Structure formats: C-alpha cells, structure tokens
C-alpha cells in the first residue's frame, strides 16, 4: 500500500538543490531537482554515518554527503564505488509543474 503526496511546484526546489520533507517518527525525505528538472527522492540519511543528504552538493544525478563526502546515486540510492551502502529511494512524478511523491502508507 502506498500513497501519492502532492508536494510543491517545481520552482520551489532550486535546480541542483533540494528540499526536505519531515515525517513523524521516520527519517525525513530529501527531494532533489537536477539541472534538467528530474526529481529524485531519498531518505535523508547517508548510508555511511547518517548525514543529511539534502544538505549536500548535487551534481548530475548524484549528491555528495556534507559530512564525509560519500557520493550517492539518487536514481538508485546506492553509494558510488568504492563506498558501499544504500539510501532508500521513493518514486516521484512531475505533472504540470507540480512535484508528487509516492510514500508507504
């Protein structure tokens, strides 16, 4: 079971930047926007030491964690080699300029 949440107009997320959606009793979700307007969503927790990925520098489809500079591929949530680990990803949709996010019910 899952639900689609309507988040915000895409302009409210800076290109190559992110916004954070907090959740009760669960890790926040980081929403990223690439330079070509692809939206990614991952749990805002680096698989290394739990750093907030939303605060990192985004480049291509990757983000560099602000704490120890692990690179996380936002399409899969996987850490880039040689680091190993995975951040949970969520499906997103962009429709008529509005960002949607699919979360577990």
């Amino acid at each position: 079971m899952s639900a689609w949440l309507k988040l915000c107009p895409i302009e409210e997320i800076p290109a190559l930047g992110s916004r954070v959606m907090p959740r009760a009793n669960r890790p926040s979700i980081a929403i990223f926007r690439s330079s070509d307007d692809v939206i990614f969503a991952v749990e805002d927790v680096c698989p290394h030491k739990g750093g907030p990925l939303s605060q990192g520098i985004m480049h291509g489809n990757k983000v560099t964690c602000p704490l120890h500079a692990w690179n996380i591929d936002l399409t899969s949530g996987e850490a880039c080699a040689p680091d190993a680990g995975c951040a949970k990803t969520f499906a997103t949709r962009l429709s008529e300029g509005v960002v949607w996010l699919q979360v577990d019910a």
Partner: protein
Amino acid sequence: MVKLDRVARQVIADDGTVADYDRLLLATGSLPFMLPVPGKELEGVIAYRDIADTEAMIAAAENHKHAVVIGAGLLGLEAANGLALRGMDVTVVHLLDWIMERQLDRAGAEMLQASLESKGLKFLLGKQTEMLIASDSGRVGCVRFKDGSEVAADLVVMAAGIRPNSTLAHAAGLYCGTRAGGGVVVSDTMQTYDPRIYAVGECAAHRGTVYGLVAPLFEQAKVCATHLAEFGIGRYQGSVTSTKLKVTGVDVFSAGNFGTGDGLEDIILHDKNGGVYKRLVIEKNKLIGAVLYGDTADGSWYFQLLKDQTDVSAIRDSLMFGDAFTNNQIGDVGHAGNNKAAAMADTAEVCGCNGVCKGTIVKAIREQGLFTLDDVKKQTKASSSCGSCTGLVEQLLASTLGGAFTPTNRSIKPICACTDHTHGEVREQIRANKLLAINAVMQTMDWKTPNGCATCRPALNYYLISTWPHEAQDDPQSRYINERAHANIQKDGTYSVVPRMWGGLTTPDELRAIANVAEKFSIPTVKVTGGQRIDLLGAKKADLPAIWSDLGAAGMVSGHAYGKSLRTVKTCVGNEHCRFGTQAAMSMGVKLERMLFGMWSPHKVKLAVSGCPRNCAEAGIKDVGVIGVDSGYELYVAGNGGIKTEVAEFLCKVKNDDEVMEYSAAYLQLYREEGWYLERTVHFTQRVGMDYVKRRIVDDEVGRRELRERLLYAVQGAIDPWAERAQGVASYEFTPLVANAVATAVSTTNMNGASDERMAETLPH
C-alpha cells in the same frame, strides 16, 4: 598471432583465426637477450624472465654448486642474491667496469658491490664472455672469457637486458628503430608509422628509448587509451624513471640523470665506513638526478622534486639532509616529513581522520593494484579528509610499488576528474575571458561532466566572485552547505551559530541576547570558541532565521564561522588596559575586522593583533599577525595553527594603524587573487615564495595600493547574510516541505478526485 596484414587490416593467428581491425594495439613486450655465444643452448643455461626460469634456478640450487650470472643490472643482481641465499656459490660477470651502470655512478656502484661481496657474491668486471663449455655430463660446466680465463658454472643465468619483441611488426613492414634494440618506433601519441597501429610497453621505442619498467608503461597506456577513445588529449613525452634494488639489507635508489658535464653540479655526501653515499645532480637550480645508497628514505621526495622540476635554490642548503630536515623549516608536508613510512609498524595509524593504519593501506595497494594517491584515497579513505597524511601515503605508495610509483606533479594536477585544467588555468581563463557564471566556465573550458562535482563547483564559484566582484553570479548551489546555510553543519544534522564579536569584544546586552536565544531555542551547548566568541551548538535548521532575527535585534551579525572567508581578528587587551601594552590592540583588531567583513577567500582567514611582543593574541600562527611595538607594528603573514603548525613569516614593519590596514588588505587581496581554492595562506605563500610576496606588498607601493583598492571594492556594501535571511531571503533553504494534499490513499485508484487525468495515467498500478 603469426601475421599482421596491414592492407586488409587483419591479424591472423596460428590456428587460422582471422580478425579484422580498425585500429590495432601492439603490446608484444620483450624477450630476454641471450648472448650469441657458443654453448648458449646447453642445459643449465637460462634467462631470468618467467616462472620456469625461476623454477630452474631453484632446482639448480638444490643439486649444483656454482652459478654464474651474466649481467650486473637490477635483474642480474636480484637473481644472484636469490641464488646465494639458496646456498650457491655465485659469480656475477659484467662487461663494464662497474655494476648497475645505468642506475649508479661508479662510487655508488663500488659501495653496492662491497656490500654484496660481504654477503658472499663474487664479481668479475670488465669480462667479455667468449663461450660456454659443457661438462662431462653434457650440462654447462664453465664460462670462458675473451681473456682466456674461466670460471666454473653449473648454472648460467643470462640477465644481459631485454630486446623488444617486434618480430610481428617488423614482418608487417612497420618501421622499427635500429637504436634501442629495434623497438617499434612510436610517436608521442603512441602511434607507429601506420597511424592505425599503436604500440606500448617494452616492444615500443619512443624517442629512441625502450622502457623496461612498469611506470612508463602506465603513462604510455593512458595516452594511448585516450587516443583510442577518440578523446585526443595528452601526449606521452617520455618518462623520468626511478629504480630501487630489491635486495634485502641493501638500499639503493636512483632516478634521473647522473652523468657529468657542463652546467651540471653535484652535491655529494660520501660516508664510506658508514655505508652511505648520496649524490644529487642539479642543473639550473633544478634537481635532475639522484643516486642514494645506504639511506634511501628520501628517494621519493627527491623523485617528486625531480618530476615537478621544482626550483631548489631556496632549499639547496638543506637539500642533502632530506625531506624531514628541509621541511621542518619550510614546506607544507603535514606529517610527511616527520615519519618514515617504511619504518612504521603495520598497526601504526597513518590517517588520523579516518582511522586507517599502514597495514590496511599497504594491503590495499598490493591486493587491489593501486598506483596513485587518488586510488588510495578512494579505496581506503586515507588522506581523503584533512590531507595532512598525504605525504605519508605517497611514501607508502613509493615504498610498496618501488619504481612503479609515479608521484603526482602537483603544479599540473587538474582541479578534479571533471576537467583537465588546473586551478591556475581556470583562474586565468575566468580573468582573460571575463567569465561570469559557472556554466560559462564549463562550456569555455570543455568540462567533462554536465554540472561538475562537489570539488570543482565551489572552486569555480569562488574564482568567479573573487575575480569579478559585484558582477559574477554567486551560485548558492555551488557552495558547501555551511556557506549556503550560513551556519556550520554538525554530525547530527543540526547547525551551530556564531555571532560576530568584533575584535573579541562583547557587551552585556549582546550576552543577554545570546542567553535569551539559547533558552528560547533550546540550544543544548554554548561554547567559547578559540576565536574569542561564542558558539551556539545544536540549533535546528528551521530555527536559524528566527535565531538570527533575535541576535540581529541586539546588533549582532554573522561571524562567518562557517565560511572560506574572514573568520576572526583575535586581540589581546592592548594598551587600553595592559601595563605592558604599546599599541591599542583591541581597537586595531576591530578596525581590521570591520574592514574585512564579508570577504570571501580561498580558505578561511584568521587574524590577530597583539599589543606588545609578549604576543598574547598568538599572532605568530595567524594568516595575518600584527604585533605592536613601541615604534609601530610588526606584520607577520602565512601562519597556521592547524594541521601542521606553521609560524608566520615576518613581512615588514609599519608605522601606524593605517599602514597595518593597507598592508594587511594588500596581502589578503594577493591571496584572494592568486591563491587556489582551499589553499591556506601558508601554502599559497610557500608556493609563490615569500620573496614574491614581499616584492608585491612591500616593495611595490603602487601595486600595494591597487591591491588594497580591489579588496575594498570587493567587500564594498557587504551585507549581513543573517539579516537578509531573517527577512526571508532564501527561505526555501530553511523551510521544510509539507505535503499539502494527500492525493489518494491507495495506488490502485485515481489520485485526488481525477483532477489530474494525465497524472493518473502515468501512475504505476
């Protein structure tokens, strides 16, 4: 592979297989050179090349007594040493007058020979082999020389060099040189005379040289690979090689050119009884060759100087005494100069940031086949944080890989993997072409990635705004989070807030406001910093604008404790209070800090002002240190209290407060204009040289004033980033997203009352 048909562009194997090619790479290697003497086919006559040869040597050592090794090069000596260790009576025969003549000069070779003789090896020098004579058993029995003498031999190992294996190329009509034993002649792009065919490694002759070591092959392969990938960058222009002899208990290192001749100067240390010989060859203030015997600990350092073509005139006095001695006095080496990597225990910690010990690094280098500092950084994390162990890691690479290690030439290293351009080149292009945005730099300079990475984007952003202040576009997404959020991120994702206290001064009102903020926003930790101000640690990001609003209401502004920017001006109480004070240190500090407010720089910048030579403000370890004396101020620059403590260097003496401001501003602007991103003032100053800094700041009065003017222009109208954000600038940065409408509870039904049909169609079911 038996035939190469260049017309049909096919290669033909001995089983008849035919393969077409568009482009072809020859990597056929080399063959050991067997002396063309009678008897070379006898049983017991081998080369030293492959595992079968090694096995033959081990077997011979079990059943026979006398071994002769022909050739006293690297390989020959290693073979001889191995045979002696297995109990054989070994004689090394060499055509020339001293051993390892390609790597050693005569004095070094004689010391090495004496040392090997004490291990039981015998040497016959200047001997030309005439023939190998069989014993009664039919196996080789002795070696006869041209001078008629003979030596008993049950085993003859020929280690007289290699010959490029260019048979296939030669048969196909490709031009093979006559020099260097007939390697396939290649250009700087590793192409043979047939441009569709490349050759690398020991089969190739480049500019008349066939390299027999692994490091040059890597360099050749790199150039060849980019060319094959039709990414035609890079030329192979020959290699400077270094060698180390792998014989236990004998340390020999050599690199570069160590001949004699016009314009070549020698620095020699020769301690015959102590078993140490070092010779450094210098030409035009650059190290071009090094021979080390007995103490090779500094081999990798000399090799780096040699490859970088570093001007050694400033360190000439201490050059012979090595890295540790030289760089304890000058130089940015972190721990590099203070440890000898090879002597460290495997359990010793090399990288203190990431807890990586020597054993882990050496194991990774061996098992994963690492060759560069970047490889080690990636695989082990060592040296990937503060970088102070970089020198040590390079030493480990050098001692583990020996000659296969190619130190990075730092002055030509690209910013990151996104580009082939160096920091210096990028700065120059931004200035010359008046580039004003990151995209423009990336397009103009052919960036390889669409939007760079976390290494190059912050650097580009700094270069743009420092080169074209008030004109270039400052991109917050290309700044590290601390500069974007104007606070310091902590390990748990909270932030720390440090309001500015000009010159370390505060007031009861400011302290009350800080106390109120700490209570109101449940700040868990309040700490006094090393920069004479107060840190509020553990603030939630969403609270930051409100915190800043409250602090701002009490007159406080950002302390930029999070930026590559002006941090603090630390002061002592000066003659305002102190009975020893000669100058008003506090007011001087406040003036400096106000002048520099809002200044971005390659790295953080800290100043200090002391009111007398007792120097209570510790001005000796600051980027700019000001020490009051009765007749004025002494100015010191390029100090650093961090990774490796660096004492600031004396710049000049000035008369009054105005001159302190002028000279400090000019020095910092020079650093801002010519420093590389993340280079502290100490590293910048060492790179360009203190003499240069003095020329620009002390000697050139007009230039100094212009530098100051450019700095003042850059910080002109600097606004408090906290006040802006308290009023709503960049609010997206601090405001959490709230899902403002739940579309639908279940994915199998349309979302949000079919208000968005197209959306519904694209949803997964």
